[in-house]
């Protein structure tokens, strides 16, 4: 049985990096007696994959992981069981059964929604307009070969809003073909508007991860 697990990473769990997060889940599955399937071969490992790795320091209410089980299980019951074994700050929100041939979370993801909370920096609608009306938003980024390249992040910023004076909502391209991080957008916003950028002046929270279909952006557990 294929299952998509939605989970939150909160509080001090934000200091745990991606590989350690995976190790923690491996222990949670083992401890809880969750019937997770193992790969064949000489060095079997649990069959699980996380959709989009979250940066250290970022909290989230919308993380996804696909797992395979050896038997059919009741998702609701196991949601409770797993939560009894997770470290503080790691919460299983829901578990959804996937059709047998479902695309993996990793292959599916198109976008993510972030809430950026600023402590002191003041952002205005005008500033956002100034950025979003630019034809191109160029940034410098190192590629996998560690070579600096200029890329245009404009097509990756799907939506930007300022519901409250210190809260910025961003819907950004996420996944394998384009991956825009909120701090890059914030940096560009500050740069364009000539205000100082301070990487310790804000916190980032990922609210949801989406795939795109005819109806628009769909949360990943919308199967």
């Amino acid at each position, binding site marked *: 049985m294929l299952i998509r697990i939605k989970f939150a990473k*909160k*509080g*001090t*769990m934000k*200091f*745990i*990096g991606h*590989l*350690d997060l995976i*190790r*923690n889940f*491996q*222990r*949670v*599955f*083992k*401890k*809880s007696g969750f019937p997770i399937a*193992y790969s064949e071969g*000489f*060095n*079997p490992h649990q069959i699980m994959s996380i959709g989009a790795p979250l940066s*250290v*320091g970022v909290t989230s209410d919308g993380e996804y992981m696909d797992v395979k089980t050896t038997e059919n299980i009741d998702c609701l019951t196991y949601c409770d069981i797993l939560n009894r*074994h997770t*470290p*503080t*700050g790691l919460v299983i929100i829901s578990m959804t059964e996937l059709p047998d041939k479902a695309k993996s979370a990793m292959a599916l993801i198109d976008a993510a929604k972030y809430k950026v909370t600023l402590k002191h920096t003041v952002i205005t609608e005008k500033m956002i307009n100034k950025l979003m009306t630019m034809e191109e938003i160029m940034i410098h980024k190192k590629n996998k070969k560690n070579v600096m390249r200029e890329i245009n992040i404009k097509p990756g910023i799907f939506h930007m809003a300022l519901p409250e004076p210190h809260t910025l909502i961003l819907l950004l391209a996420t996944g394998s073909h384009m991956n825009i991080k909120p701090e890059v957008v914030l940096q560009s916003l500050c740069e364009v508007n000539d205000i100082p950028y301070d990487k*310790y002046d804000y*916190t980032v929270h990922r609210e949801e991860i989406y795939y795109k279909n005819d109806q628009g952006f769909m949360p990943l557990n919308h199967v």
Partner: protein
Amino acid sequence: MDKKLQLTDDILLSVEKPARYLGNEINVIHKDTSAMAIRFALCFPDVYEIGMSHVGLAILYDFLNRREDTYCERVFSPWSDLEAIMREKGLPLFALESQDPVKDFDFLGFTVQYEMSYTNILNTLDLAGMAVYSKDRKEEDPIVCAGGPCTYNPEPLADFIDFFYIGEGEATLPVILELYKAHKAQEGTKDDFLVKLLDIDGIYVPKFYDVTYKDNGEIEAFTPNHPHAKPSIKKQVVMNMTDAPYPSKPLVPLIQTVHDRVVLELFRGCSRGCRFCQAGMIYRPVREKDVDVLKKQAKELIQNTGHHEISLISLSSSDYSGLQELTEYLIDEFGNDKHVNLSLPSLRIDQFSLDIMNKVQGVRKSSITFAPEAGSQRLRDVINKGLTEEDILNGAGEAFQGGWTRVKLYFMLGLPTETFDDIDAIAKLGQDIVEEYYKLPKEVRKRRPQIVLSTSFFVPKAFTPFQWSPQNPYETFMEKQDHLNKKVNKKNIKYNCHDAKTSMLEGVIARGDRRIGQVIYAAWKNGATFDAWSEFFRFSHWDDAFNRTGIDPLFYTVRERNYEEILPWDFIDVGVTKAFLYQELQRANEGKVTPNCMDGCMNCGAKGFGGGICYVD
């Protein structure tokens, strides 16, 4: 859900591995600090990932927290990035669980596992905002204590530590804590408490003893200066290991540590009597745990941690009487569909252990390790390493037949009576093992064998037969290493070299007296911390410290001691007698081997503890 943290987010996000400093692990113990009679800060003076892999710390943490009146929390050395921030911002060193400053605790207890952690101990005191020297600390500061194998010679740390605990914590800590509770209720001074400690066995309070020295630098007298101070401090041990408390819900770090696994302690002590080995002498007698208890503990531990590996630990796991029963049980219970690996360090390589290793699922046939310690049979007899060349070659041959191609061998350079012939024998043994591989039929030799020879430098330790022996000077160590390097045929053999500077310092500290405290202090003042880490170690910090204090390191290392000389640790009674150790030294010089305790009692003195292997027929 957001727990109180000592460090702000911007600090945590600017340092490497912030999870080291959070105290939010699985199975972490949280108590109401206001309701605690005793707050104990237990410190492993090295970085988190090292300290968290130490089973002794886990045992004490569990043991102390079983008490309702006591809250034991952990303290580790902050990594250099955080230390710089703490010093810049004036942030105090804190304990992980409550995140409260160490200064607010009743006790600060160090577990002292290796000599190169001593400057970190001083640094811990300083970061906590306390004076480094005991005499300069304030009445409201925590009482500073220390235990662990290195403290069997407590003298180099005597000026920094209020009291030492000689032996296993489970034995007498409860007595100390009860005494402290009563003392706290009476609102006595720290000194009053230290005086009361003099009546307890196993406790050494350095300030109540004076040392005088002869003109030649040897100790003239070591004398108590308080009527209650005992002339001899007796090691405290747990005799009933089966019923001794053992953590069933150990902490599970959220980040990777050196050892991420469940640990089963099979027994304490060692019956082999290798003459260089301090652990083999100070942990006598051998005390086994019942195999049924170990089975039950294994099950509970896997259940409560979710770990994927069980490791059997003891000084020489092959000697455990229930080993076959235990490993068979573990393989049946956890192997195959349960996906738990079994790791078996310090096994003798024989058919039995190879069979087990073959059965254990998930074991990559990576390498087989031998620790012959010396290359020639003559020198192996001198050190009483009960391992023959035949054992090694047969073991390697069987391993090759079983599909292993990598063999690792550990040796020491600079053992007493060593000659260049003995060093040549190391290279020859490596070559003989290579040839053992080429004895296999051609069709089963899939790849080239890889033999890895590693040498460390011999450091004579207190409470071993070699406690009187000279250590090689630095130049000799390096000369021997170069010699061996040239002798090793590099075709199938890799040789791992080291620098001998830390071995020399270990040699000074391991047999140091009280005067060595000044050197440690001066080295720390020069900036020495994390000396066990090659990226931090600067010999110049120590070299300068010897110069400034006028202390000659060679007095402690290359000098041969007489039997009559008062050794700095003579007042500690580990059970094994000085006479036995000296007799072992003489047998070493004659190349005579001494049997394993299982095969015959040599009356080392450990029988005085009234139990364990000494009383098994």
